């Protein structure tokens, strides 16, 4: 199968890097959803420059450092799969088709945790949970489409 994204905990914060003529731009992204071995879904606010850059240059890298010794960069091509997410019209759903996974794990240590944060806004926390739920449903739809395409 070649490409093999690891599993990461549900509340993981990743770092998404996009590029434009000014060079690379890296931003934190909340709770990227692993769809399968080579696909990731995440939500981006409509005002994010990263979303605008993806539309022009879809090459991206997603760094994930998380509990369970998860340390990798997924490099691939991003596309907007939903301009407005159900219940979150200010957010777009973005799918990354992963072409390569750089494994950063080392024998000298294990990664025991990623970025931790404490929520101040209940509202924003619940809104993120809803967006992640939508992404997970989209992930199931993606798998369902693949199964149907295989005629199974």
């Amino acid at each position, binding site marked *: *199968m070649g490409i*093999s*994204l*690891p*599993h990461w*905990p*549900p*509340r993981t914060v990743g770092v998404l890097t996009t590029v434009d003529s000014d060079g690379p731009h890296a931003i934190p992204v909340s709770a990227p959803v*692993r*769809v*399968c*071995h080579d696909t990731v879904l995440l939500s981006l606010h409509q005002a994010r420059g990263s979303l605008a850059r993806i539309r022009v240059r879809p090459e991206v890298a997603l760094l994930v450092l998380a509990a369970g010794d998860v340390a990798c960069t997924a490099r691939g091509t991003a596309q907007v799969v939903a301009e407005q997410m159900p219940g979150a019209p200010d957010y777009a759903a973005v799918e990354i088709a992963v072409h390569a996974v750089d494994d950063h794990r080392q024998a000298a240590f294990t990664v025991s945790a990623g970025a931790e944060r404490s929520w101040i806004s209940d509202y924003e926390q619940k809104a993120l949970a809803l967006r992640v*739920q939508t992404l*997970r449903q989209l*992930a*199931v739809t993606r*798998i*369902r489409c*693949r*199964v*149907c395409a*295989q005629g*199974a």
Partner: protein
Amino acid sequence: MTPLEIQVSALGRHTLVTPWGELDVTNAERLADRLAELIDESSDAAVIVHLAELEFCDTTGLSVFINGARLAAESETPYLVAGAQGRVGRLLYLTGLERASWLLPDLEAAVVTLHHGDDEAQDAAG
């Protein structure tokens, strides 16, 4: 407490059962009965229980999945449980249940197992 909802849908020719919310002693029987029905109705198609939306599960809930595996084995129905996250995933790990052959990390691995066998499923799981 988030009430338990049970969503049943098709995944190709297989049946996908997605419990939403919290599974415990107060509602485990409902899921157990539904699983028993679906396993009974299934022919050679599989019953896949997808746990990605399950927020909480106690040991009574775990027994539902174990009992489902027993019923499926008796009726020779392919049966897989996949996609446990967070607290539910940790419970499966702590109880050692994650080593069960019918338990897989995600839906993709479940599909691969049904169509290609265990070895490729391990590759898909990463």
